[in-house]
């Protein structure tokens, strides 16, 4: 009962906030001002450490979106259409759409239709930034659920069919527990874990499960599935804060994987408005480090032009402005090589769980 009315209150607040934005446009017309909105610049030049100095959020630099230009005017028109959908189609009728559905809905909007999904995704992010709300508040869902989790923890999830309690080793299949898109409904019951290991590839998570790494080291394995979804990042943060579990991130050794780590630990440039909600500053990078490629003599691929550009761009990314990361990036540029997580298989299937990870965990003092 209270759950429901809480939701109603939240929805009505969201509606008011969205309407306020449209009211601004209306008043701008009436006061003979060219309609516009101001929002923070969403570039790597405009991210800075928050007050606690642990995660990266948007800085003071703002960009103006004004009907003075065709581009700006089109964006304002699209914004109006989206807000109408969110108010009248979602909040008023208690419905929701996925990001992809929203993109298709725009097909009927004539000149206001989106040319690609990235455009509508971005507009939803803009609305989050402008209103200070999250897309869940607008009833907008991501396409896929989060990735999977496996390890010695018992959780309770509130589903449409009531509460479900499960242990993420004993009550789930080999694929693990599926992280839902809204992880706020999850309660952590009890656990025997000593740390969390977030893993970039499914292949490596399977390897760790098959080798019994979770049991041997009392570890919760979280699959990142490439750039992690919001819910994945959020559940890692919640476990870290609420259960005080240390977090290590295990990715490929290439420039793109460095960014995966950065988005887990410091926040993503694209969604820096949510950093304080989703980033886990305590997360540590376990590997594959550039230095591991050399020390463990891993089999490698050559860096291609995009890789090199990505590394060079990271050198000017404030999130990587530490001695550790500068060394790692410059070393990779110097050796001109990258390596996958799976490269450890070249030394035997047990090598990663018996030698590499224990050595690294030892060095880092985790587990």
């Amino acid at each position: 009962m209270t759950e429901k009315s809480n939701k109603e209150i939240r929805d009505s607040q969201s509606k008011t906030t969205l309407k306020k934005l449209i009211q601004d446009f209306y008043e701008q017309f009436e006061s003979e001002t060219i309609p516009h909105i101001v929002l923070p610049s969403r570039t790597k030049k405009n991210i800075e450490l928050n007050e606690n100095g642990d995660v990266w959020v948007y800085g003071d630099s703002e960009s103006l979106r004004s009907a003075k230009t065709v581009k700006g005017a089109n964006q304002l028109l699209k914004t109006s259409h989206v807000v109408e959908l969110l108010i009248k189609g979602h909040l008023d009728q208690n419905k929701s759409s996925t990001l992809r559905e929203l993109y298709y809905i725009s097909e009927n909007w004539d000149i206001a239709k989106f040319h690609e999904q990235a455009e509508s995704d971005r507009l939803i992010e803009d609305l989050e930034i402008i209103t200070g709300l999250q897309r869940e508040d607008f009833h907008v869902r991501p396409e896929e659920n989060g990735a999977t989790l496996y390890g010695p923890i018992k959780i309770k999830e509130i589903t449409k069919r009531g509460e479900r309690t499960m242990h993420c080793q004993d009550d789930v299949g080999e694929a693990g527990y599926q992280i839902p898109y809204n992880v706020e409904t999850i309660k952590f019951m009890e656990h025997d874990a000593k740390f969390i290991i977030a893993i970039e590839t499914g292949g490596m998570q399977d390897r760790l499960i098959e080798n019994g790494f979770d049991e041997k080291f009392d570890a919760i394995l979280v699959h990142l599935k490439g750039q992690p979804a919001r819910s994945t990042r959020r559940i890692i943060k919640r476990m870290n804060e609420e259960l005080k579990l240390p977090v290590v991130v295990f990715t490929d050794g290439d420039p793109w994987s460095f960014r995966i780590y950065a988005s887990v630990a410091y926040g993503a440039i694209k969604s820096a408005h949510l950093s304080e909600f989703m980033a886990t500053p305590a997360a540590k990078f376990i590997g594959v480090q550039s230095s591991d490629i050399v020390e463990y003599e891993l089999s490698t691929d050559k860096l291609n032009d995009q890789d090199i550009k990505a590394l060079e761009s990271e050198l000017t990314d404030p999130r990587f402005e530490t001695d550790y990361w500068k060394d790692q990036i410059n070393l990779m540029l110097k050796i001109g090589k990258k390596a996958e997580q799976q490269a450890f298989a070249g030394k035997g299937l047990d090598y990663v769980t018996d030698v590499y990870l224990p050595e690294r965990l030892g060095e880092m003092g985790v587990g």
Partner: protein
Amino acid sequence: MVIAEELAKKQKAISIAEFFEKNRQILGFDSSPRCLLTSVKEAVDNSLDACEEAGILPDIFIKLESKSRDNVTLIVEDNGPGIVKEQIPRVFAKLLYGSRFHSVKQSRGQQGIGISAAVLYSQLTSGRPAKIVSKIDRDAPAHYFELLINTQPNEPEIIGDKIIEWDRLRGTRIELEMAASYIKGRRQSVYEYLKDTAIVNPHARITLIEPDNNQIIFERATDKMPVEPKEILPHPHGIELGTLMKMLRYTESDTLDSFLRSSFSRIGTQTAKDICKKSGINPGKDPKIVALDEVKRLHEAFRKAKIQAPPTDCLSPITEELIRKGLEKEHTIDFIETTTRPAAVHSGHPFQVEAGIAFGGNLAREEKVEILRFANRVPLLYQQGACAIAHAVENIKWKNYSLDQPGGSFPVGPAIILVHVASTHIPFTSESKEAIADVPEIVEEIELALKDVARRLKLYLSRQDNLQRRREKEEIIQKILPRIAKKVGEILERPTPDITPVVAKIMGNVYIQRVVQQNGKGCDVEIRLKNHGEGTYSFNLHETLEYQIESASPEPKKIPIGKQTDHLWKIKLKPGEQKALIYRLNIESVEASKLPQLVVDGIDEELITGAKVVNV
């Protein structure tokens, strides 16, 4: 034996062939593609010059045959005046033979080393004679010669000489076999050379048959012959000491005074007297016995005496119109501007610079601008970096003319820059005549010409830019803004907001609005004006009504038109300024809402929002 005699034994005359072999590269015969290009160039230049001198529209045919990768037979045929039988052997098979060496006028070949050098190269590399056909008139016989150059005395050696049947009315044909190779797809190629030649010789038709039998025709764009350059006497400022000595020795004049007057341009009686006085030589002295130190003083006096600049009718510019036609026929472009500078002088030699800039069309957008260099209508393909034209292009700050110029070198963008320098004496950096030396007067003229066309390009580009901006604004106010207003009204369930003030703001217009308010029995009317533009605007505002207006401020001029009265205010608004005109009407507001539209005159329609613009 005396040492000098010993040395004399070793000194033997260097044969012309040896000289050629040692100096191949400075004469333009180094790599095997370039040898072919130089040969084509010499033959085509000769043909164009010959046709022009005879007043014939050139029709030049070039055929290349290739037996192997490094062997080419070159055939060049023209419809020129032909060469008389006796002259043929010397024209083609004697180096440094030619009428042009001694004349002062603008011509393509300057030193007559041209075609015989190609003949020599051909004979050195293929061992075969040059085959020449020439016919001077419809009824005259066609003479066929096979010629070699006897290099020791530099004299022609006639291998064959006969009369043949030739289907041309008149003209000359040369066939040369040589070690050379035909290449395509780069700037320094026969194709590019002919294309550029066609641009600056729009009166010529040039046909090229490539070794694979592919035929390319560069069609003529005009039937107008270029103005025949006049021959002039040398100008005293352009004479070197040695030449002056030679002229003195071989003159037919009896006195220095008459020598000066008859050998140079711009020396009349007064000037001759002045020169003699300044050099301290008796005007009546026999020029043949003037001593060396006297020659030096005379040469010196040339600089000191006041002498008029040389005449410039010896130059034949391509003209602005024909450069335009030439560029247009070989490229698809959106914009072109050309200029022909007035003639100028460098060390006594008249010269004239012309420039053209073509923009847009299908020219490459991201690449460096192509620079087409010409000297006396001959394309320059090599040594661009050493050329005054390239330096002048680099000296200009192209950013000021709306073109990018990364690293301060050549500008980048979809453009072609053409520069033609015409002169009786082009100062080349070397004998291969591929780069014009950095003579300050010439560089300055090139820069002036380029700045002139660049200014016009900038104007064009800014106009295009304005048009684009205007189109964008129209899209905003006509398509997007009304939709935003409608949507915003729908969401808030309120009336659609009025967009006109915002439209005026976006357009940078003067916004005019009449606000009517009921007050007692009548209405208060306020006409609000606001200038959102960047300029100060003056115009007349007309409120034509059938009612009497009262308490107007400021008071308008009243002009009766039948039953109605035209109330006229003269308005002047600075940027950002706003004004209000108020008056009272003794009618109900319902009636007032039916008032006719405000009318404005004396200003462009697109500068006003909210009133009708009527300009008579």
